[in-house]
């Protein structure tokens, strides 16, 4: 079995790959990857179709008013890359309810989809407040050892650990 067909790679190698990718992206394209800003751009365009007068006055949306943006194409690439990797190991499949979730909350699609929706909603609010997510703040700013990136990651892990124990611990 070739290396590319393997289902998973060792974490140090994945970390090295991400580091090379970020450094190359910075010196070649003057961009650091970050996955959360495109969702503000998407929100802008959806709202633009419904309440155009409101979004045109918005101070925040003003900075996110086009979808023709490097990070928008980046996240399209991320989805394609995830698909390609799963196909390469012949593990691409449609799934709805992850194992650990099912152990605690059952096999209901609706419960899981609602949980994911609410989780994503809370998560992006934190990301926009902090000024980035795991990729754009934690990794991109963490690689040059900026203090706020480490404050963000510390708070993220602390609250993630507490929340996960409260939510899923009974299953263990």
């Amino acid at each position, binding site marked *: 079995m070739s290396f590319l067909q393997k289902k998973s790679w060792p974490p140090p190698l*994945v970390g090295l790959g991400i580091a090379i990718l970020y450094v190359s992206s910075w010196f070649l394209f003057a961009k650091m990857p970050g996955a959360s800003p495109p969702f503000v751009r998407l929100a802008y365009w959806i709202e633009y179709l419904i309440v155009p007068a409101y979004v045109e006055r918005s101070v925040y949306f003003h900075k996110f008013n086009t979808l023709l943006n*490097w990070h928008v194409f980046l996240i399209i690439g991320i989805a394609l890359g995830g698909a390609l990797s799963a196909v390469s190991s012949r593990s691409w499949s449609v*799934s709805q309810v992850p194992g650990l979730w099912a152990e605690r909350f059952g096999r209901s699609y609706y419960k899981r989809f609602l*949980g994911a929706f609410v989780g994503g909603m809370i998560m992006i609010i*934190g990301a926009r407040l902090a000024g980035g997510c795991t990729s754009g703040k934690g990794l991109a700013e963490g690689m040059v050892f900026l203090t706020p990136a480490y404050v*963000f990651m510390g708070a993220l892990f602390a609250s*993630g650990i507490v929340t996960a124990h409260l939510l899923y611990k009974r299953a263990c």
Partner: protein
Amino acid sequence: MLTMIISALCVGMIFGFLLQKGSVTQFNTIVGQFLFKNMIVAEIISYALLFGGLFFYSIAVMGSAFGLHAALPISAGSMPAAFVGGLIFGCGMALFGYCPGTGIAAFGQGSMDAGFGLLGMTAGAVIFERFYEQASSIMSANRVSDVLIPVNLLGLFMIAGLLCLLPIVFRILRRKIG
């Protein structure tokens, strides 16, 4: 325009590929990390940060030795916003089971639940915009661009030293959680 699209797609595809191969596009890996059932997320992040730091600092330090100035991606960020944002983010991430980047890659691998999280993220952006005025007072407070490790030869050695320690640290951690 075309270079912008192609460069972004290429970086994104490699990133998504690496995340999927790293298993961090699995709900069980992310939540399992928070429950200390595995150490994959912490391990990938630690290696990425230290290897990334090693490359950035090497380029900056060696560049300056030859009289060249390599600009690093250093920007100012608010400390209280990073802290409060991190707390909110971690809470949502434990419920969603992915972070924004891994959620997108997970959707690509066929995890439909991740797709609903991406919809939730769009809804969250709508909500955040409504509270931007209140949030901006936190976001403009105490903005710093201090680095924890100095950008010089000593800093470079510190990063290299930490990188050498990582395999030992994670071997101990993995043994501890069994």
